[in-house]
């Protein structure tokens, strides 16, 4: 899938949310994959990590960074986890 401008709702968690100052925002982004969303929102979530250290979900399902994103998708960006 080639990149094209889409309306994407991005959700930020933990440190990403604190950096962005919001938990969720809807953006117009020129993206093809989840990785593109992560990279293009770096100024928002502030991550200096490679995407491989983080996880992503699309519409509440765990996804790969190579997963395509579609117009209207909700993309959840997860910083490195630390349960337990």
């Amino acid at each position, binding site marked *: 899938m080639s990149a094209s401008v889409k309306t994407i709702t991005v959700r930020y968690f933990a440190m990403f949310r604190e950096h962005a100052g919001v938990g969720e925002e809807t953006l117009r982004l020129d993206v093809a994959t989840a990785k593109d969303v992560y990279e293009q929102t770096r100024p928002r979530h502030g991550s200096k990590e490679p995407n491989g250290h983080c996880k992503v979900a699309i519409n509440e399902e765990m996804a790969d960074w190579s997963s395509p994103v579609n117009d209207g998708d909700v993309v959840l960006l997860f910083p*490195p986890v630390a349960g337990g």
Partner: protein
Amino acid sequence: MIEVTTDPIDAQALKNQLCNPGAGGFCSFEGWVRNENEGRAVERLEYEAFEPLVLSEGQQVLVEALQRFPYLDARCVHRTGLLEIGDMAVWVGVAAAHRDEAFKACRYIIDELKIRLPIWKKEHYVDGDSGWVNCERCAEHGRH
């Protein structure tokens, strides 16, 4: 069965739910908030979770454990919000016919939960500083 709660975890009540006349062994693990991490004195912890995916991914972990180490019943509860030193952050309990499956399934479950579930932990240090565990250098502005 996995749950997320902001209430204190009642280990005894959870264990009672696993009673089974065929069970000869029960193994549980509890994660407690401790007063120190990597040399820094911790005052309290704050846990954040994205519950829908904690539940689905957690259920997947329980199923994997069942396939590898056939147990009779297992439960897991993770607490979120602000926790004090000594508070229980997570409880995993496994009842099995024999102790080997109980131990191995319990260990598998907690090991996988810690690396796969969308749960984040912010440490509040005694010196007033704070930081997200595993993530201290992962955002431009360091600690908050």
